[in-house]
């Protein structure tokens, strides 16, 4: 190998190293995936998804099995969350999805609880059972209102409680 050959070889190494760096940024850090192989796309409807973002993780028993692909609004003004799950995942059709928080103020993620049916979910199907995100401010507000009601009228709270329960199925 003459001097020019060595130089060209080093240049080739540089190009390779640069391409590897860009590929690492795109695939590992950027999460670029080849979409053609088809993961398990399913969706779920929630009343409240505050704090959930695209790319938020989806977990079963704390193990990451996919991520939130997109969040939109459906015709009935409920939040439609599209999930991109691992294609190898065998998820029973009566599984449920809940939006939970890592720690008290941490990031939101979706927790799936597998059901007991023998039938497995197919791509594009809906997760029927959902539990919405807890909005801390609303909880505090409700608590304060309830405390206020109780201190004013002693016999009213029973009626108010049943009313509240009917309002939120």
């Amino acid at each position, binding site marked *: 190998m003459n001097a020019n050959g060595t130089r060209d070889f080093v240049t080739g190494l540089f190009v390779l*190293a640069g*391409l590897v*760096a860009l590929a690492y940024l795109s695939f590992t850090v*950027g999460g670029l995936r080849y979409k053609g192989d088809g993961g398990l796309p399913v969706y779920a409807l929630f009343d409240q998804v505050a704090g959930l973002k*695209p*790319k938020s993780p989806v977990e079963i028993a704390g193990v990451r099995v996919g991520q939130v692909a997109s969040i939109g609004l459906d015709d009935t003004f409920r939040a439609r969350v599209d999930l991109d799950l691992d294609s190898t995942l065998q998820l029973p059709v009566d599984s449920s999805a809940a939006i939970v928080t890592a720690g008290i103020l941490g990031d939101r993620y979706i927790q799936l609880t597998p059901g007991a049916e023998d039938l497995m979910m197919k791509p594009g199907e809906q997760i029927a059972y959902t539990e919405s995100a807890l909005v801390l401010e609303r909880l505090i507000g409700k608590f304060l209102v309830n405390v206020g009601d109780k201190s004013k009228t002693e016999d009213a709270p029973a009626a108010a409680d049943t009313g509240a329960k009917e309002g939120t199925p």
Partner: protein
Amino acid sequence: MTESVTRLGRAAGGISEELGRLAAFAARILAVTLRPPLRFGEFWAELFKIGVLSILIICVSGVAVGMVLSLQGYTTLVRFGAENSLGAVVGLSLIRELGPVLTALLVTGRAGSSVTAEIGTMKATEQLDGLRMMAIDPIDYVVRPKAWAMAVAMPLLSGLFIISAIAGGYFVGVQLMGIDGGTYMSSMENSVDFENDVAGSLLKSVVFGIIVALISTYRGHTAEPTSAGVSAATTSTVVLASVTVLVFDYILTALWGV
């Protein structure tokens, strides 16, 4: 009053004339690009000079920038108890902004200036005229390999810069500040998106590569053929390319949110 308006008009005319010459120069490079012979050997040699010889400065600067970013990010985030988001802060600011911009500024200083000086000196010592005497177009033989090598090297160097900076940030955040290594990487991977962040970073570095390539070769090609002229052209390459890169950085970010 009339005189100052006239002066303004003359200045505007001069600027647009210069921009027109630059565009014509770019068009000439493009026109000779596909004309055989492709001169792959010259291109590869220039890629060595511009790319390989810049690796050291790019990686050392990258590690230093990543370390200081991690340190500053940590001291700010820890006030809000959010130090677990350090990876996201370091990764996003590097990929979206600092990687392409700082790489472009470093490459301008390291390689852009030498490209201008080389072409300018060739002009001052009448080597370009010599090429023309032999019926070789200097744009084809001298300018084209340098311009393309610059445009190709920029995204590759930017990728190396970002990787070194992420590693430097990892060292400070995880080894010195005691953040969990998995938390650092996963918070980065969860917040960095390909379409929004990495693709924008690539677009920026490609545009910056073209800007620096054009300005440095144009300045060299139009340098006054004296030693003072070459030195003025080299200075003006560094100043003009740096300012243009920063202005285009804002424009790209504002228009496409990258």
